[in-house]
């Protein structure tokens, strides 16, 4: 026995020890030093699922929900579990054939693997949902119904104000890096959904879920100890009156233009109709993308445009009320100042007379009532040639000061996106156009009657009415009165401050009010009269040009506030290119709106007028033309598709039923009696095409 080898036991122990030390070292590195494995493990096994809180609900001024949440149901399938079900019955319930069933299953497997759930059909129709729900127990292995919240526009109105939500894109994600959005999320895209996104979205929650090696969910992680509960979005309360809005949309149907109504006491918008509009519920649910494309790019009526704040017009004669204010406050005219109109204004020579409706001599009140151009041309002449100021530049600057104070030429700051600021001519601009000191009142005269270089939005006109109604102040017009749970972001603060930019004495306003009441009582806007309500209004007939050269039909403007003593509504209406005068269309619409708002209903005696107004089709010829072109283009496309389909069905039929169809076909193709020829021809085509279309429809139905 070789005793000397005993020392080798120590070496063997050393080998053991060394190996274990190396392994321990590696363990120490993996478990103690390196941090990445913990992260990798979490990435492997923990799924951070964002839990979406319900989006805030939007209520109108009478606390009726106008933008709510509802659920839509998706039928989900896990292909490898969906075996041994009664496929035939299932297809019957789902209204599909087995080939389609197989196709969808295969698509699901390709897209999402067989062991993960995929959408079999999204946004089930109520009928299908009911049918499937009743029979779901038969298909419970493999199929289940998943609910998904969508927005519901309960009144089908105010689409452009409320706006819509849309899936966020990469740009949006880049811009809102820290707001916790991830791709696939929806965010407010336009309207109030956009401006109050932060309040409406609430706070997302996070749910930590455990998944296995195939990414299948196994349950909550640590029993939900780390989960963050979502906080529901805040509800918004609008000053909008949804019934008034609906009334307005009804009145404006088949017309282009808008109505903006403001509560002058608060600045809250009561209604903002933009016509043509769209059904906002088209932009929820499964067909959303197609609808949005159609509305945004293909519809020549531009239904997604909120004309209340996005369209600018020359204010026309409605501008005169403001000129009266300026004139009186500047002291260049008095209520008794008279100008006579011989039929036109010749102050700038006979070359370019400015027409007048009623020749005669007018005081201020009558000038407003009868909308006398000459009177206000003279007022403007005095404004520009005001002896208080050394030159036209400075007098125009002074005039601009008034205009800005009246809320023109700048964004009012309503809580809706993409508000236009309109335009008020400035001395700088005129200097550029004509040269310093090279222009005078005559270059400017059309502005005095609200034409030419001045542009306003309907909202600005309505706000101007509120300003006049309040006798010198206004609140920034706004949609949202209050946010439930408090205005944490302070966005409503600016709507709570009274704006009183220039101190104009009440008496000045009284004169203007007198004139405006005269408009409705005995002037150009008699169409707006309502018995028992003292309305102050002003008509406007706005000349406009396509690309500055082709004269189009006049816009019909009417703006008003009522009642005169205690104004509750300031309103303006524009009907684009309707021709005629401001009083013809806009005034009756405004009066109906005022009646609806102040009395809650339209009197029976005025119903016919309401119907007549709502029924009028005043779509401008140019738009009509574009629509027709578009329609015919679509018709061509439809026809060509029809041709293709027809070719296919022809083949199908000739292959499938050659013997059955032949005799009837030949019978039909036999020359009929000459007497029957005329009625027979369409008949002959009709049943034929129908017959061919039907089987195809069954196949292609989604």
């Amino acid at each position, binding site marked *: 026995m*070789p005793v000397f080898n005993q020392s080798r036991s120590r070496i063997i122990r050393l*080998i*053991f020890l060394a190996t274990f030390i190396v*392994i321990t070292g590696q363990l120490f590195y993996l478990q103690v030093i390196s941090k990445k494995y913990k992260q990798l*493990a979490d990435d*492997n096994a923990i799924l951070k699922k964002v839990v979406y809180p319900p989006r805030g609900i939007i209520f109108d001024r009478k606390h009726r929900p106008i933008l709510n949440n509802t659920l839509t149901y998706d039928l989900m399938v896990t292909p490898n579990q969906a075996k041994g079900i009664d496929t035939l019955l299932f297809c019957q319930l789902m209204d599909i054939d087995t080939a389609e069933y197989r196709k969808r299953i295969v698509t699901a497997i390709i897209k999402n693997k067989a062991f993960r759930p995929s959408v079999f059909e999204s946004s089930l129709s109520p009928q299908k949902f009911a049918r499937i729900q009743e029979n779901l127990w038969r298909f419970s292995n493999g199929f289940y119904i998943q609910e998904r919240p969508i927005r519901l526009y309960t009144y089908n109105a105010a689409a452009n104000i409320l706006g819509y939500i849309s899936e966020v894109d990469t740009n949006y994600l880049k811009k809102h890096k820290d707001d916790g959005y991830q791709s696939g999320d929806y965010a407010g895209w336009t309207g109030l959904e956009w401006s109050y996104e932060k309040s409406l979205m609430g706070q997302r929650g996070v749910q930590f879920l*455990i998944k296995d090696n195939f990414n299948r969910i196994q349950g909550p992680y640590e029993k939900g100890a780390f989960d963050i509960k979502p906080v529901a979005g805040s509800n918004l309360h609008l000053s909008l009156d949804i019934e008034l809005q609906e009334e307005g949309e009804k009145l404006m149907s088949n017309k282009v233009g808008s109505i903006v109504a403001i509560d002058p006491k608060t600045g809250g918008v009561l209604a903002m109709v933009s016509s043509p509009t769209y059904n906002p519920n088209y932009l929820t649910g499964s067909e959303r993308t197609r609808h949005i494309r159609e509305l945004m790019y293909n519809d020549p009526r531009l239904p997604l445009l909120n004309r209340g704040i996005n369209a600018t017009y020359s204010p026309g004669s409605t501008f005169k009320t403001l000129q009266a204010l300026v004139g009186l406050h500047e002291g260049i005219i008095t209520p008794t100042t008279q100008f006579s109109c011989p039929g036109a204004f010749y102050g700038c020579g006979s070359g370019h007379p400015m027409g007048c409706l009623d020749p005669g001599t007018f005081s201020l009140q009558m000038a407003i009532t009868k909308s006398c151009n000459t009177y206000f041309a003279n007022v403007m002449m005095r404004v520009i040639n005001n002896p208080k100021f050394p030159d036209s530049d400075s007098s125009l600057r002074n005039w601009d000061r008034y205009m800005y104070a009246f809320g023109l030429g700048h964004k009012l700051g309503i809580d809706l996106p993409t508000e236009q600021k309109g335009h008020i001519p400035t001395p700088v601009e005129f200097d550029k156009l004509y040269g310093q000191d090279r222009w005078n009142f005559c270059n400017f005269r059309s502005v005095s009657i609200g034409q030419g270089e001045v542009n306003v939005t309907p909202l600005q006109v309505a706000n101007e009415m509120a300003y006049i109604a309040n006798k010198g102040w206004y609140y920034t017009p706004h949609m949202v009165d209050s946010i439930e749970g408090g205005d944490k972001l302070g966005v409503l603060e600016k709507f709570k401050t009274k704006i009183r930019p220039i101190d104009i004495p009440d008496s000045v306003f009284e004169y203007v009010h007198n004139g405006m009441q005269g408009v409705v009582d005995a002037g150009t806007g008699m169409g707006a009269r309502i018995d028992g309500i003292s309305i102050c209004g002003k008509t406007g007939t706005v000349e406009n040009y396509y690309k500055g050269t082709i004269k189009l039909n006049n816009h019909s403007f009417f703006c008003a506030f009522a009642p005169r003593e205690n104004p509750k509504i300031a309103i303006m209406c524009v009907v684009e290119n309707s021709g005629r005068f401001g009083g013809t269309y806009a005034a009756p619409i405004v009066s109906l709106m005022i009646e609806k708002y102040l009395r809650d209903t339209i009197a029976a005696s005025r119903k016919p007028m309401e119907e007549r107004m709502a029924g009028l089709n005043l779509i401008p010829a140019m738009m009509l033309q574009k629509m027709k072109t578009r329609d015919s283009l679509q018709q061509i496309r439809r026809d060509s598709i029809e041709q293709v389909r027809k070719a296919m069905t022809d083949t199908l039929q000739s292959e499938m039923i050659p013997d059955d169809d032949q005799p009837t076909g030949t019978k039909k193709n036999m020359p009929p009696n000459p007497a029957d020829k005329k009625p027979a021809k369409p008949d002959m085509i009709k049943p034929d095409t129908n017959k061919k279309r039907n089987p195809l429809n069954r196949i292609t139905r989604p």
Partner: protein
Amino acid sequence: MNQRNPAISKGIDTSLIWIFLLLVGIGLTAIFAATYKEGDPVVQSFLRFKTDYSKQFYFFLIACVLGLFILLTDSKFFSATANIWYVFGIFILLLVFPFHSRVKGTESIIRMGGFQFQPAEFCKVFVSLALAKYLSRPETDFTKTRSQIIAAGIALLPAAITILQNETGLALVYFAFFLVMYREGLPSIILVLGFAMAALVVATIVVDPNTLALVLTALAVGAIYLLRRLIKRNRRILTNIILLWVICVGIQRFAVPFAFQHVLQKHQVERIFDLFGKDNPYRSADEIADVQTTKKNESQSSYNVKQSKIAIGSGRILGKGLLKGTQTRYDFVPEQRTDFIFCTVGEGFGFVGSFILLALYLLLLFRIVTIAERQRSTFSRCYAYGVAAVYFFHIAINIAMTVGLAPVIGIPLPFVSYGGTSLLTFSILLFILVRLDADRQMVLR
């Protein structure tokens, strides 16, 4: 029981039994943690022999009964029948060829009724006995090369058969018996040469072949230069150096590529290259194209090791706790009840738990070496070293594999991995050792 038959407990090394019980306990817990799913009826499935942990528990009971029988056997029985057992072992190994059933790519498993067992596992016991028997023969002079070759033959014959069954991993275990031979007087130079060869093979994989050849040449030239005085006196040194250089370059240039291309199987080659984070250069053009088109750049084994490292690493210092390991519980680590069972421990109990398990193993090995050195009989000592060598190889390779230090070789972790055959094998090895050790006083030699 002890009171009825005091002879059994007499002289038994209780520390070994305790370590054995502890390890099996840890094993059962780990298997439970790896296979238990939320809501499984534990008691029912335990009684019905349905789940892996209950099966393992029954195997543990069988092992205890077997152990009892072994403890009741006379210690001379083992030395007397060692050769017969060895022949029996070779016989059942060969039996695999006609009767094997293919399970997970191996051809080394025999199915009998509902059970399947792996003769290659059992054979370790017989080889330990037979090798001990041969070395302890009075006529064996282990200083002679002939005896050394015979001893190596005894150890490697089953290995050769196992390789033929595509179980390279199990075959490698038999190389552990060189440790026994080393203890019994195998020249150190062989061990050193073995390590040097291993180093050379690793270098071949890691280093660019031409660079390595250059380095080897430089080393040879350097050696000649340094030893030029000695060489003048003794020409044989020069011949030896040149011979060594030729062998090294030969291995590096021809033997290793040959082995990779023709001897080892493709998945094994992949595993080896995965371990060193290299692309397998011996892929055929088709395979390369296949890899590129399917983008399956990660082979299965490297996925295993990656997931295993993630599981262990995510345990941090104290671990996630029993049944809380997300990686092992949700099947991220494949084979986690058997070969990768250490992950469950690493993830659930962290560095502390893993370290305790490692320490327990080290204690077991040291204890066995201590026991070996206190034997009076050469047979007992050799057998004890054989047991230590087998355990060591399994433990070291298995854990090193899970932490990414060794290539993936499918060998179980003693007492902890799930598997009836392996548990019984390791238990029998241990109980025979305990029996032999209990009788150490009775043998005079």
